């Protein structure tokens, strides 16, 4: 069936709510309104107000309550209306949820999913454009995923809901209604921790995730006559599928990492360091990164374009690396 990215998310939640009575959805305006972006449209009507819960504007509570429910064997999906607001629930995620199993010596699991719209390119300004995934990749005990396709959005969310560890699920609002994709009518899962090889190539590897996957794929197609590019979509950012990353680096010897989150302290730094350490003797050029400039994501279109990666910048970076 042909679905948008956001519809894939809605279907994943709908199916899991129907499949498992322990699954709940909690968040601001997720119930009657169906979510600010309509990701949960119709779910409260179908699954009841007890299970699709309109919460007060209290991100810390939303996550904390999720932990309490998880201890009781429930599997709450906790929506941040914009992922920018996840910082208000930061302590509950990193100190409460991520440590729960560890500080209890393995006595309990913490099957929560914290999800919400991230990403820029929509003129959303400072508080509606953030990509804070790197903060959470620094936290042991969490898993972090960022799907780029409708297929993955559904399959990864279903896997996240069934996972016994806390999963932070970054959906990209730019993709919500901009991509439509044929997905299977029958049920499927996408495993957490597995990258997707989006395109095989021999000259150079681009490692990316989230919305830039689409720009990178387009660049790879447009540049096919000059350079044969391999594209890896990480999909899961914690834990990263190092086996897939390293196999590709060993094949091509050249790596460009592209992400929409800021350069400094971003995932790209970790990926680059790991490659430099483990694949040094395979490298045929410097490990390069293309990311958002080290500034907030501004509102006015020209400034936003200047700050975020786009196909033009990707093409330029690929050319530079290919020529090295």
């Amino acid at each position, binding site marked *: 069936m042909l679905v948008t990215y956001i519809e894939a998310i809605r279907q994943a939640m709908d199916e899991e709510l129907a499949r498992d009575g322990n699954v709940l959805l909690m968040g601001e305006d997720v119930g009657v309104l169906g979510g600010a972006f309509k990701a949960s449209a119709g779910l409260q009507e179908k699954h009841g107000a007890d299970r699709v819960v309109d919460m007060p504007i209290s991100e810390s509570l939303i996550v904390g309550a999720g932990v309490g429910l998880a201890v009781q064997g429930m599997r709450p999906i906790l929506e941040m209306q914009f992922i920018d607001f996840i910082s208000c629930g930061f302590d509950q995620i990193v100190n409460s949820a991520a440590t729960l199993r560890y500080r209890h010596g393995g006595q309990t699991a913490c099957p929560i999913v914290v999800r919400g*719209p991230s990403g820029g390119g929509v003129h959303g300004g400072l508080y509606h454009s953030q990509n804070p995934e790197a903060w959470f990749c620094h936290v042991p005990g969490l898993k972090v995923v960022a799907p780029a396709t409708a297929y993955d959005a559904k399959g990864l969310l279903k896997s996240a809901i069934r996972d016994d560890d806390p999963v932070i699920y970054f959906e990209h*609002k730019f993709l*919500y209604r*901009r991509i439509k994709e044929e997905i299977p009518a029958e049920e499927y899962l996408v495993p957490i921790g597995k990258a997707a090889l989006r395109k095989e190539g021999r000259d150079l590897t681009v490692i990316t995730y989230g919305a830039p996957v689409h720009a990178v794929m387009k660049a790879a197609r447009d540049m*096919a006559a000059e350079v044969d590019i391999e594209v890896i979509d990480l999909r899961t950012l914690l834990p990263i599928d190092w086996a897939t990353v390293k196999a590709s680096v060993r094949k091509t010897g050249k790596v460009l990492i592209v992400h929409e989150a800021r350069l400094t302290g971003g995932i790209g730094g970790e990926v680059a360091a790991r490659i430099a350490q483990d694949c040094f003797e*395979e490298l*045929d050029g410097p490990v390069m990164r293309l990311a958002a400039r080290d500034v907030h994501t501004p509102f006015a*279109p020209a400034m936003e374009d200047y700050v975020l990666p786009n196909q033009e910048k990707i093409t330029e970076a690929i050319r530079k690396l290919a020529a090295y």
Partner: protein
Amino acid sequence: MLIDVVMPQLGESVVEGVVVKWLVEVGELVAKDQPLLEISTDKVDAEIPSPSAGRVAQILVKPGETVPIQAVLAKLETDPAASRPAPEAPPKWDEETEGFPGHMARKTEPPIPAPPRVEPSAPPPPPPPAAGRIRITPVVGRMAAEHGLDLSMIPGTGIDGRVTRKDVEGYLASEALAKETTSSALGSETPAKKLKTTGAKAAPSRAPIVSPPPLAEGDQVVPWTPTRKRIAEHMVRSKHTSPHVHIFAEVDMHRVAAVRAKAKKEGVNLTWLPFVIHAAAKALRETPIMNATVWGESTVLKKDIHIAVAVDTEKGLLVPVLRNADRMSLKEISAAMDDFGARAKSGKISPDELSGGTFSITNPGIKGNLFGTPIINQPQVGILRLGQIVKRPVVIDVDGEDSVVVRPMMYLCCAYDHRVIDGVAGNGFLYRVREILEAGDFS
């Protein structure tokens, strides 16, 4: 002047909207902010207020139609007296989640003047590379150590003359080629063994690197496309891997010509190629060693006969595979080839149809010249190439008397992998193909 009424973006994720109904008609006078139409998006339903006072000049989108954001919905003729360029609409604010935008602005103090902008001084130019120093990457260092290479012998094609991995691979390939020529001349080393020692490390081999050619005015450098690179790599690898033996048969095609002529009368247009495919498939069934692939140091005798047939297309050479060719009638083969040809032109051949061949036939067509020596399509072990078919006087036996007659003749070349196939089998196969073609029985 005419101004546009556009589909607004109501919400950050919204990409399109539906026109529900128009509240005004063409020719109607409208006031600024008067509702013009109702729209519906994934997130909201809204009335669109007129951007200006004026007369509705055109309505461009009918109710029920879906259009992308920023699409022009209608045009307004503004009052000429008040005609001024419409101020650019302020960017949309997500009121659903943010409330009224002016609310924050009113609270803020007057802006503080920004400090003067300081242009960063231009970075100093990078120091020129030290003379005599060889610039390499880590992988090149490792490869040089592994192969005992003197990197100063390898011209670098990277930035600032850096020696890249491709440069080393190319150098190794050219070296291997040189060595092979020498060693096979001496007969000191078997090709199979050579594959093990040089093939593993140097793969994928590339064209030998020579120092950059002197370019004259008007010379054109055409970098290889990925397809070209793959072909080049495959050809070099095949030549490195298989010791090719080329043998030729001169085939009298007059009975084939007779069958073609008969078919033509029945309205069926048959080319020469299906006959050769048919004959080859029959001969392969009788000579299993020719219908084989090489796997490591083993030969795999293939049960099914899948013949890869080279087709020249606008997008380059394509080699679709005719599955179970030995079980197909002549007409079926002909139909399948026509189908491949048509689909190759439109680029609709699936990758599955291009793999799995067990033997190859290449037909360069009417301009294919007298004969040619084809390169084996790895990991197969044999290939046939059709030569030009020309009428020639030939001596035949008529009732015990030598007679000269005119016959359509073709030189048919067979290449086989001498690692796997001995002369008896190779020659026997080609002889059999000739026999079948000359017998003219294609039932």
